[in-house]
């Protein structure tokens, strides 16, 4: 999470959405199981 270039893009949507970072996939708490 260090030395990351700023995004040149205008970000849209939910910034806390589900992503995989460094081979660990982050599951936001607000996504209910099986929804």
């Amino acid at each position, binding site marked *: *999470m260090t030395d*990351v*270039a*700023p*995004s*040149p*893009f*205008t*970000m*849209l*949507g*939910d*910034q*806390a*959405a*589900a*992503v*995989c*970072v*460094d*081979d*660990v*996939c*982050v*599951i936001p708490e607000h*996504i209910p*199981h*099986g*929804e």
Partner: protein
Amino acid sequence: VSEPIKVDIWSDVQCPWCYIGKRKFEAGAEQFGGAVEVEYHSFELAPDTPVDFDGTPMDYLSQRKGISPEQAEQMLARVTGIAESVGLDYHYDDVHQTNTVKAHELIHYAKAHGRQLDMKERLLKAYFVDGRHVGRIEDLADLAAEIGLDRADVVRALSENEYLAAVKADVALANEYGIQGVPFFVIDGKYGISGAQDAQTFADALAQVRDEKAAVK
């Protein structure tokens, strides 16, 4: 007929949110209804993983990331449930954790032969649904042949690392753009959408770009 809207997607083959996000993006694009041109870009989540990692993703998470087996099992169960909600039948017990650099080379090979989207879909399904190996050249060549690519030429290209530089260029570009996680969608070169977001988010972004283009004409 208006020009298609370009969407660049950074993604890894063994990223569960990338396949889920692919389905959500596809639903959003369908909802949008206009022409969209998709190009996939390589992102390596775990470039140090051995091709023949001996274990499942649960083993990987617990052995290499210090996550307890119980917590890893819970994480994978949640992802599997969410995958199911978009019509994907993940089988984590059958998944072969591996290094995906060759799979990315194959996606670039397929792009050069006009089949990138089919190859990307086949590789994701192979990994998450079918329990196929996506790290070894021979296995990848089988998958390529299944979508009609020349198996022998795929073996040659992957053995010669023909598309390795293209993979590394994608990874470098992601770094330059500050992309930390995948999936990451770039709409028309200016809007970023991070993660497996709702179909509506993609539909709205595409509609926004269409409207902006129409306004400047």
